[in-house]
């Protein structure tokens, strides 16, 4: 099957009167990573939730490996894409392990209970994000960064071929930011996972993604390789603040002037 992991055709999305994108076309192949950048309120999260099938587009269609969400149904869609939300609300007490295990839901039948294998997968995911040993903690007692890593572990437990990440670096300290980006880079390289992530740091986008999608907030979008898109003039226009490019150890960084 050579259909792209996800493709959008003639996508038009808006929040009320405010246009996020008009006529957006793109597709993401196995192992590809795409960064979405834009100002606050430009519609990055809204676009990502449309891609995740949680909102419908005004016009156009999203397909996962060639099929749209209506054809797939929620369960099959959950085997093909995972979504990292920006906010995590825990109304009820629940252990860290229980929360990670929710990722197994699409893989279990209606009457199945989680098996030892499911628990092992969840424990492995918790270990991968550095939460080993916290399995029995109540999620309501976790710090913001720990809660964010738990959400990432839940996503790894789900194990879809396509990850849609809404600000995966939120609340994380620097070492965990790099660890998380390395984790998804590894998933892309070794398992052929596709990754689309909303980022606020152009330097990390350049370092960890193949392509970048710039959302200007007025309906204009630009898509291209990081080399083309992430330049001081482009980003200055995107953020409305002058930025300067510097290079260090082969990585490009953008510093506000």
């Amino acid at each position, binding site marked *: 099957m050579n259909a792209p992991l996800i493709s959008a055709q003639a996508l038009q999305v808006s929040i009320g009167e405010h246009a996020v994108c008009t006529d957006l076309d793109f597709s993401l192949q196995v192992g590809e990573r795409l960064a979405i950048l834009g100002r606050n309120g430009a519609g990055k999260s809204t676009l990502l939730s449309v891609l995740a099938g949680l909102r419908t587009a005004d016009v156009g269609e999203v397909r996962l490996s060639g099929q749209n969400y209506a054809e797939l149904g*929620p369960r099959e869609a959950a085997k093909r894409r995972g979504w990292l939300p920006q906010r995590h609300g825990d109304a*009820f007490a629940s252990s860290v392990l229980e929360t990670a295990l929710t990722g197994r839901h699409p893989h279990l039948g209606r009457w199945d209970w989680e098996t030892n294998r499911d628990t092992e997968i969840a424990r492995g995911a918790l270990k991968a994000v550095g939460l080993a040993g916290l399995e029995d903690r109540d999620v309501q007692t976790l710090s913001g960064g720990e809660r964010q890593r738990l959400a990432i572990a839940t996503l790894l437990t789900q194990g879809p071929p396509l990850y849609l990440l809404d600000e995966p670096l939120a609340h994380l300290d620097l070492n965990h930011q790099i660890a998380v980006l390395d984790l998804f880079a590894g998933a892309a390289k070794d398992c052929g996972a596709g990754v689309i992530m909303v980022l606020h740091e152009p330097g990390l986008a350049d370092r960890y993604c193949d392509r970048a999608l710039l959302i200007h907030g007025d309906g204009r979008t630009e898509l291209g390789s990081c080399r083309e898109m992430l330049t001081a003039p482009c980003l200055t226009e995107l953020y409305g603040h002058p930025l300067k490019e510097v290079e260090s150890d082969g990585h490009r960084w953008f510093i506000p002037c």
Partner: protein
Amino acid sequence: MPSRQRAFLVLALLASGGLASFAAALAVGSLAVPVPDVIAALLGQPVDNAAIVLELRLPRALAGFACGGLLALAGALMQVLLRNPLADPYVLGISGGAGVGAMFAILLGLGMAGINGLAFLGALGAMLIVFGLAHGDGAWTQTRLLLTGVIVAAGCGALVALMLSIAPEHKLRGMLFWLMGDLSQTGAPWIALAILGAALLATMPFARELNLLARGHDTAQALGVDVRRLRYAVYAIASLVTAVAVTSAGSIGFVGLVVPHLVRLAIGNDQRLLLPASVLAGGALLTLADTLARTIVAPQQLPVGVLTALIGVPVFLFLLARHPR
């Protein structure tokens, strides 16, 4: 996460607790019947006081169990649906809506069927208002939900007070007992029991999906739950279950709030275990409370709703203090 074996163990324990509450309800009263006689009477053997056990106490115990189970199930489902541990038929003004309907029916001089019918409509009406205004995610919804419940309950309280004040003397006692929750006049416990069983059977296949729903709508949808369909189904079942409970026993407060919460504290929030455990615990609790209500000041009877409220109010205040959000 409880294993399947542990779940069965917990449920077996609670079921035996339910049986014990039945034994107490059938044996204890202004006339004590020894347990062996109770068993003999249940088996159809001719013993002294068989009529008291079979015709007075058994229907009432069954009705108590059914109502307690229904209220606890309704509370548990509403708490998931609204993602708020404080949701409960009484707190959200749904019992109040039923009260308005029932008072109106008594005032009009309607019979049992009329009272039940109008109470049912009142409960559905209150539920439509509360759920219509309080859907969605987010902190504001949680606040709005409780505010809506308070407003609906206050409005219903005013209407009930109005009807009580213009009611003729001879109808007042019946009205007051209905309002305080009363199991002595429940008609057919088998209907309530059958609806309880059917509602539990209908929700159990979706228990794991309810676990996800409690974590947020988008999260549940992203993990493969058909959120829209599930919410409508749970909404319909919770409404029906509440209306049946309130209709058959008047407004019995706080069972729907306290029971799921206590069960959650004891065994966690896995709905696969929480829902059946809440039904059993709620049934046993209300059966016991009703037995107490008719024995503490025997031969006088207390309305069982007074007892449950006396237990429920401090628990509710404690929960509010613990959830400052």
